């Protein structure tokens, strides 16, 4: 099987502002799930449901064109936070 199983639909906090993009390609390089690709010298966010919110694209975008609420998708950690 290629890649990973798909996780929940329409949950990612990933947003991308095409106007700011310089087409450097960094987001396409760092994304471990192939969400971004470069088409006509700009980044395109494709399969957004594959995004795991790792934040690599946002951290490495020199134009601050990407935002994602980065975090670790771990239920045990969420429970620990809930319990205080």
């Amino acid at each position, binding site marked *: 099987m290629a890649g*990973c199983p798909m996780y929940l639909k329409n949950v990612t906090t990933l947003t991308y502002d095409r106007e700011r993009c310089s087409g450097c390609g960094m987001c396409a390089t760092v994304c471990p799930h192939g969400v971004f690709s470069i088409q006509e010298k700009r980044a395109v966010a494709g399969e957004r449901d594959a995004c795991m*919110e790792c934040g690599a694209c946002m951290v490495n975008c020199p134009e601050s064109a990407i935002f994602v609420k*980065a975090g670790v998708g771990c239920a045990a950690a969420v429970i620990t936070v809930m319990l205080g």
Partner: protein
Amino acid sequence: MAPVVSTRLSASDHYTAWKARWGINRMGFSIAPGLYAIGAPTPASPVLVSANYILSFDALRSSCVGIDAWILVLDTKGVNVWCAAGKGAFGTEELITRICEAKLDQVVAHHKVIVPQLGAPGVAAHIVRRRTGFSVVYGPVRSRDIPVFLSKNMHADPHMRRVHFTLYDRLALVPMEITGAMSYFLLVAALFFILSGVHVWGYSAQMALVKGKYQLLMLANAFVCGAILGPLLLPFLPGRALSLKGFVLGLASAAGPVPYLYRAGLFGAVESVAWILMVPAASSFMLMNFTGATPYTSLSGVKKEMKYALPVQIGCAGAGVLLWLAARCI
């Protein structure tokens, strides 16, 4: 002079890896940060950045057979690249500090460091470059692809940039799932075993011995689902939420033995219903916690599935326990 390390793993390296997989002595798996050499590197040789978690470091050096390179080890407090990057320990500041401390600009003539792609959530390449003059080249996700990556003039094919979650990857996580859940399992198993001797007239150790083993069988059922079968069968289980996958698996695994035990007169009706509720709840909870080990679940997704799954899990488990206790008293 940077210490030279071998690209061959010794028997004791393999033993360390085995211990790490089973979570034995987890804290003792770090190596000293700083610059290392493999082979006989020159100022033209590549610089590979790693975490100071021994398995990350060993995976890297054993992938570099026949390669002359520098390895710059960051201080990630003994945590692997991926987890440390998520927490920022494998990060921009640490990388800048190590580049400066190792006087890398005097060691190599080029101005490039190869950072594992999974370290990218912690490292802002453009900031490292601005502050040190070194540009960050993201290497492949898996260190075994490094020789090809280097031979292609530091180019990673698309498949080298993608995270996979193969059967083998999941199998490698199973020991950790087992050790992680074992102490809870033993505690719960002991409780159920002892309580299975309770009946209307009081307590019978004899009955605990007779009935207890069937309770243990059902608990073991849930444990095997949550810690072993669930992770292994993950892509083939229905649904996308891991809690749902775990619930379905638990239900399927209880649907076989429970009616059998009921017909054999070993479980009463109430007790049977109790197990049909408890096994899926436990399996669902355990597989939901497996989200922490998968490389594809997002925080938003986990929060969403928990919102629905937790009440169901608590409801089923709570009702199951009450019914199970009630079954002792009738």
